[in-house]
């Protein structure tokens, strides 16, 4: 075993040990002589070096890895922009129902009216929640929803002969997927600065961008509302009116929809196309980075371009169909089915009152934390430019800029110190327009008691930073520290190879 590291599964390998018995011995006996029915030049000469490990060892190995990980079930996870709220256990339990899990995607849909009904329910519910006319459930994740949306914009303009509309306006506070999705779809990105105004889009910024690029060249604008700063885009109606006036479209990034359930709808704000991150608003598990799901919604004029397959109602039920001018398939089969089942369950568990309570409490929790922290960790946009008090929606962005300047303690130092205190860190250094940003989103599922204890720790760290910055930096309750990312980038080691320990795997 290599020096001082957590043992890899490959290092437990002992030839002769057997793992999980998938099929009984009586069926295993007859397989060897069939090898001759394969083309000899394709038959492998050696077995792959998969490890031979007993099931108990395997279990302990992965339980240990679980214990070396951090989930919402472990502790408070205030990552801004990520909506790390409780993932209800009922969603996990029922999605494992064999009626979902063991249905093959090629089983004809005519024999699955229950699933069509579920798709149709979800399409209706999401349409109502967002104020859109039609929902497509197929995109695999938020970023893929954005990509689908951008392709729809592209096809829409092509269908109108407006091939010159190639410019997509994206604010500087946007998530990196926005510009990347636009470019992947063949648009050119015009980044506009909102940082100097109220941190949100306003008519001066918009008109300047229109003037600069030419009204006839602009395809659309990508916004999230509330913005990445946790602020409601208060001029949104004027923005959408102006964009439509010049013949352009509005894209809504649903990253922050958790603030708006039952309160306001992107469709009413004038957005033509939206995506929803089910793993945020509808609490399907993040799973350590995926799988997610990114349904999109459109107004009627964009419906002919929706991805294939789409579900619509018929005289006696529902059916799959391919929209007339569909952009095509986004992924295999019918979307992230297991994730959509969880979203369906989540909505059923909440009902109309419950959904609104989600957003109310997400907003109250965020404002409570902001109010208690902002004297120590300043919030750049805590007043409107006209001097009025400014409340956040479901998240806010505090800054360690002052600490950095005065005592040299950065957002990264605070983040690491929080990890040492048993909390997950907030999102740091995003959005890029706030120096030493700490982006905090408590979500609705945390209690006041928990938020108070978080505030206590944050204020304590602030104090420590001021009296003894080195002590703050040298907290070491974590087993693993000082992971060297520069070394990792310069010495690329992204897989284990059998030579590391002398192969036990040949033959």
């Amino acid at each position: 075993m290599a020096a001082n590291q957590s043992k890899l599964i490959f290092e437990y390998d002992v030839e002769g040990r057997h793992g999980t018995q998938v099929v009984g011995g009586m069926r295993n006996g007859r397989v060897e002589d069939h090898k001759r029915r394969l083309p000899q030049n394709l038959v492998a000469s050696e077995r792959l070096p998969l490890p031979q490990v007993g099931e108990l060892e395997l279990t302990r190995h992965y339980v240990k890895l679980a214990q070396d990980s951090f989930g919402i079930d472990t502790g408070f996870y205030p990552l801004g922009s990520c909506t790390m709220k409780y993932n209800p256990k009922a969603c996990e339990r029922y999605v494992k129902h064999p009626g979902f899990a063991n249905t093959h995607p090629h089983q004809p849909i005519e024999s699955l009216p229950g699933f069509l009904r579920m798709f149709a329910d979800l399409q209706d519910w999401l349409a109502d929640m967002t104020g859109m006319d039609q929902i497509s459930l197929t995109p695999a994740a938020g970023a893929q929803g954005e990509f689908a949306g951008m392709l729809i914009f592209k096809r829409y303009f092509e269908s109108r002969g407006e091939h010159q509309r190639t410019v997509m306006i994206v604010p500087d506070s946007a998530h990196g997927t926005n510009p990347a999705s636009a470019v992947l779809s063949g648009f050119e990105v015009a980044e506009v600065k909102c940082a100097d105004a109220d941190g949100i889009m306003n008519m001066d910024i918009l008109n300047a961008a229109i003037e600069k690029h030419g009204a006839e060249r602009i395809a659309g604008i990508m916004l999230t509302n509330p913005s990445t700063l946790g602020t409601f885009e208060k001029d949104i109606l004027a923005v959408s009116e102006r964009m439509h006036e010049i013949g352009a479209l509005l894209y809504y990034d649903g990253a922050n929809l958790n603030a708006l359930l039952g309160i306001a709808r992107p469709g009413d704000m004038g957005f033509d196309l939206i995506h929803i991150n089910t793993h945020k608003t509808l609490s399907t598990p993040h799973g350590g980075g995926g799988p997610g799901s990114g349904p999109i919604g459109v107004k009627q004029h964009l419906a002919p371009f929706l991805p294939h397959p789409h579900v619509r109602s018929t005289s006696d039920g529902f059916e799959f169909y391919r929209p007339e001018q569909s952009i095509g398939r986004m992924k295999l089969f019918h979307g992230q089915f297991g994730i959509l089942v969880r979203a369906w369950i989540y909505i059923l568990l909440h009902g109309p009152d419950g959904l609104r309570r989600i957003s109310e409490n997400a907003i109250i929790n965020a404002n409570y934390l902001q109010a208690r922290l902002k004297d120590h960790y300043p919030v750049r946009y805590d007043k409107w430019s006209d001097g009025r008090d400014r409340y956040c929606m479901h998240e806010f962005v505090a800054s360690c800029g002052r600490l950095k300047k005065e005592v040299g303690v950065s957002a990264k130092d605070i983040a690491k110190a929080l990890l040492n205190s048993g909390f997950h860190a907030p999102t740091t250094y995003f959005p890029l327009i706030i120096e030493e940003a700490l982006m905090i989103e408590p979500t609705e599922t945390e209690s006041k008691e928990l938020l108070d204890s978080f505030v206590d720790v944050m204020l304590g760290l602030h104090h420590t930073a001021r009296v003894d910055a080195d002590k703050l930096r040298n907290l070491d309750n974590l087993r693993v520290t000082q992971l060297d990312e520069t070394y990792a980038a310069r010495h690329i080691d992204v897989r284990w190879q059998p030579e590391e320990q002398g192969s036990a795997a040949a033959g």
Partner: protein
Amino acid sequence: MTFVPNTAAQRAEMLKLIGVERFEDLLVAIPPDLIMQRQLLVPEAHGEVELGRAVEALTAQNLRIPPGRVFAGGGSYMHHVPSVVDEISSRGEFYTAYTPYQPEVSQGYLQSIYEYQSYICMLTGMDISNASGYDGATTLADAVLMSNYVHKGKRKRVLFAPFVNAEFRNVVDTYAIGMEMETEVLSADSSGRLTVDALRGALSEDVACVIFQYPDCLGYLEEELEQLSAVVRESGALVVFSFYPYTAGLLRTPGELGADIVCGEAQCFGNYVNYGGPYCGFLACREEFVRVLPGRLIGRTVCQRDGEPGMGFVMTLQAREQHIRRNKAMSNICSNQALLALRACIYLGSVGRNGFRQLAALCHANALEAHEKLVNISGVQDAFPERHFFNEFTLRFPGGTAAAIRQRGLQEGMLCGIHPLVESDGTLNSESNAGLVGDCLTFAFTEIHTTEDSDALARLVWEVLSGS
């Protein structure tokens, strides 16, 4: 029902500290016209009791086919999911975790992805695997994206070998819209094969890559893949394999056969068929292409472990990705299918090399057994009798009976194959080689199938063809 813990009294206390009287005061920035004046139109809240009933009622409307009576693949394979996979991956530390951006508290998850990458490299014969993508079709599109980048956008044609799964091709076509690339399907000869001469004739200096499916969507193994790959490489184009990794239990890896980029589905390793998603696409390449590989990558590096020098794991080469490169990123992807990749890891560790080989051999043996029973039925023809297959094969039926077999199967609770030209949502897919597989069905078998299962299929086919 909700999962909001704060009481009305606590909310009042919090609002007071914030400095407002009512919740609505926090919404002053929202134009009044936008505030909803009605409830959302969703069903009333369900408790667990009502939820359980709703789930039962929904699934009861469907035809439930037992796993052993599913004789279909087409990119989704009904392998057994060992109990240990479900039990371990259900731990909250795994499924409720976010992307491991804070490596100090994510070492376990990061290590599992490093292990996953190692497994994928073994299975594909490649040097570098990313941390996974949405599914086997989107990672194929990613491979095309990579080819575009490698050739700096100067080669705009993408060639598909005959019989690459239509749904995979369709996804590539969608991604090609933005890249402004052209795709085309190469013609097969009468035995469904791509000849070296036909390939040579199609290649030109504007071909970015050639995509082979291994085994192809009819289930067949192309014996000359090595020669075909070499011809592609000579032309300067990249060799992309869309690969069913279960074959690696018996067969040589794509890397050994000359692939530059290999992608496919890890669904077959411990993930349920789940009516088509979520799945786990893998994407691996030769080392020289690491800079254009989209998606996350986990690396091993030096660190302090319990106060001593040691090794640990981090996300690496992040500067390729959208959160840093923004509009210059290789791709817009900002997730991976970590939970499903973890399941693949647990699966491969649980069966081990000996179990994997046995299971792969059993898939093959079960397919051979069923094939023999079916081709012995009068009227059934092997679509391409001289060709070899792993666990999926294609048969030709007398005019019109293929659809009747599928229909009869549903009546008897069996999924009897897939029509090679019909997609999973029922859309008919046209392609240049369609004439070769008109009256055909493609059947798939795995280790779960028994002699009784294939007997039942053979009996049904016999009954339909004999009119009984």
